[in-house]
């Protein structure tokens, strides 16, 4: 018989060690997988995880991909800490892209370099508005935000498709489903000449710093954590649970919307039917991989961005299917959850059957 036994206090070293072990196990399982597919595991792992970041441009791409992940994940993590499960960051990201892109389309001739700021604000407002729907449904009707936020993701995706196929289609675009390309003034400035790295990355870093200050130093962040850990203690202390639901959903929506706007006024430069390879969903993995801690999220977003780059490299150089990216992300989450579980519990072999009291 296998038996689970709760540990008295989780080991502090393992709390931080677990993500590292999970990464190690993911690499191990990945190399076994490459072996089974007939590739030399060492070469394959190098193609996947080393070569993409062996050049300056590669590093710039890494930061570029990590930006939306970090922005979404920090917002989600603050919600998760409060027990508010926003699964719809992808939808909020898409609506942010629509709002930000919409502002950019309003100024086809540009006008001022400040316009990109307006586009970013519109993006944040769009994501916030999209997240306000599940927040209202939850606080008014007690509707589960996991379901409502997830379902709204598909609505957002269809809205974007409608716009780029219909009213916002580029009249000079040979009937392709895409908008006009944006004017330079409505695009994020490039930081590193010759790369696509833009101002979004340092803003994401600031967001992580702000998230850290909020969670660890502020009374509001304290309330968020109390409500998540012990809702009854939150009521006892007089923290309004509904306000916490509103705050965390609006915050994560705004950050996801900002990420979406940054994508379209950054590397993409126009509205397309699909503007995200699932950043909003992957950010959930990033948030947990980073232990819902801002610093952890910074590292995790870079790591997961690497799986995106590695997936692309693997496609080109090894002819691996695009699904390899998802497999790696899935393996990572699986091993992390398993390690987490074993921090809290130990497995006893040959345990005695326990009978409940009569």
């Amino acid at each position, binding site marked *: 018989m296998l038996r689970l036994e709760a540990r008295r206090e989780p080991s502090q070293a393992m709390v931080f060690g677990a993500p590292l072990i999970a990464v190690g196990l993911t690499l191990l399982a990945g190399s076994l997988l490459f072996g089974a597919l007939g590739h030399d595991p060492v070469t394959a792992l190098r193609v996947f995880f080393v070569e993409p970041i062996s050049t300056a441009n590669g590093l710039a791409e890494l930061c570029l991909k990590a930006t939306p992940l970090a922005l979404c994940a920090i917002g989600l993590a603050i919600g998760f800490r409060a027990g508010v499960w926003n699964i719809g960051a992808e939808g909020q990201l898409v609506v942010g892209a629509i709002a930000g892109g919409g502002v950019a389309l309003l100024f086809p001739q540009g006008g001022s370099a400040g316009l990109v700021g307006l586009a970013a604000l519109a993006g944040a407002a769009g994501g916030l508005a999209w997240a306000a729907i599940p927040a209202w449904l939850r606080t008014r009707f007690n509707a589960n935000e996991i379901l409502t936020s997830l379902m709204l993701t598909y609505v957002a995706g269809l809205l974007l498709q409608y716009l780029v196929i219909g009213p916002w289609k580029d009249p000079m675009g040979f009937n392709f489903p895409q908008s006009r390309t944006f004017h330079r003034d409505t695009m994020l400035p490039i930081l590193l000449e010759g790369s696509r790295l833009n101002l979004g990355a340092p803003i994401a870093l600031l967001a992580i710093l702000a998230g850290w200050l909020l969670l660890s130093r502020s009374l509001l962040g304290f309330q968020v954590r109390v409500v998540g850990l*012990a809702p009854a203690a939150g009521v006892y202390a007089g923290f309004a649970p509904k306000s916490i639901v509103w705050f965390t959903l609006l915050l994560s929506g705004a950050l996801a919307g900002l990420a979406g706007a940054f994508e379209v006024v950054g590397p993409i430069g126009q509205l397309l039917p699909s503007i995200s390879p699932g950043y909003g969903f992957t950010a959930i993995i990033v948030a947990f991989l980073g232990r819902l801690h801002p610093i952890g999220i910074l590292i995790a977003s870079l790591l997961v961005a690497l799986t995106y780059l590695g997936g692309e490299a693997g496609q080109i150089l090894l002819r691996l299917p695009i699904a390899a990216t998802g497999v790696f992300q899935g393996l990572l989450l699986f091993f992390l959850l398993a390690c987490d579980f074993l921090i809290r519990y130990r497995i006893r072999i040959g345990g005695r059957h326990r009978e409940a009291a009569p």
Partner: protein
Amino acid sequence: MTGGAPTRLALRGIRKEFPGTVANDDVSLDVLPGEIHALLGQNGAGKSTLVKMIYGVLKPDAGTMLWEGAPVEIESPNGARTLGIGMVFQHFSLFESLTVAENISLALDGDEPLARLAERVADVGRRFGLAIDPRRHVHDLSVGERQRVEIVRCLMREPKLLIMDEPTSVLTPQETDVLFGTLRSLAASGCSLLYISHKLGEIQALCTKATILRAGKVVASCDPRQESPRTMAELMIGGSFTEAHREPRPPAGAPRLEVAGLATETGAPFGTEIREASFSVHPGEIFGIAGVAGSGQAELLAALSGEAPVADAAAIKIEGRAAGKLDAAQRRALGMAFVPEERLGRGAVPPMSLIENTVLTGYDARSLARGPWIDRGAAKREAERIVGEFGVVARAPEAEAGSLSGGNLQKFIVGREIGQAPKLLVVAQPTWGVDAGAAARIHAALLALADAGAAILVVSQDLDELFQLCDRIAVLYHGRLSAPTLASETDSQKIGLLMGGLFEAAETRHA
């Protein structure tokens, strides 16, 4: 070794370890036939672990158990019951929607017809003074009656040893007297009893032998009739303590808390809504509310604390201000503090440090925040002050609240709330499950707070505690609060009648 009758149960060198603690170490004791044997000890002394091993829920790491002289290994509660060991738990396990006979039938093997079983139940009830109608549904029964069902259920198997864990916490003094009569006649019939309680007065009245545990070890065994509650308490804690004492005084000054015609509508399943409660608590006064468990205490406390605001704002006035609709934080701003009954998950956040748990309710009253930011230095100093002043045993102020023992966490929470120098303190079960030493410390702190002019409301099921602390006492029964009386003008018998619902001789019982 014991002369005539063979020992019913003998433990020899029993040891049980849990990760990080030794719960029982070299425990030996003998229970003779027909003996009422008390198991005494502070919280965490290892009483529960020991009886769980006797009842087969846990398995000892070392040592032997002898049942009527022969070594046995008790593998499961079923094995224990087969040997003739029965146990009545503190929390009942009855199906509310079934009748008494059906509930008992479920616990017995075999397929005895219900009608015959009902007769046997009634018969056992008559023999031991446990009057119970086997056809009644459990949801209709009072808490005391439910306990009788639990006991009858054990007795149906004709046990030779009956283990009882804190059986009187849900009973009025009168019901306790009836229970003791039953237990004495059980013992006279040859059944042995192992009786766990922290109420030393009861143990003195009932038990003929006591084994005292401290930190998992047997530190003494005595005849409770030859001891005083004080000497037994000192054996339990391994030191001496001073008991708080107070002369009751009548209320004076403008009320700090005024409750008028309070009624609640929480809609909680199996809750007891408050139907009518009116009272006031004055500066320097300690006001006690007695009542058996489940009389509406939880609902009253949630309404007073602001966790469940009430529709009528004027039903609760704090310092003369209508407060019924205010939430807990707003009431704290008016000078109220509150110690809830549940420590973990309500009074404290288990995975957070003591420092953060200090911030939970003290951020405003103790200025632990500067603007939107937590002042971590001030919070740490405040946590250290509480730990020091109340003798909280904790690894450090950084220790998780969940890692503290129940008594220590209670000292911490009481200390945190008192430390806010409240004008009005509402305390639920101040010493529930707390050892004698910690209880004395908490009582002294409450008395000092009242002497400093604060108004204190104590809701407790422990009558001794209420009489020790309170100036006036009222009784809650099925959501209705009796008229308060001066503690000096009543006694536990009169309060006991009120706890059973006899508000006025003419008044009928409310079901």
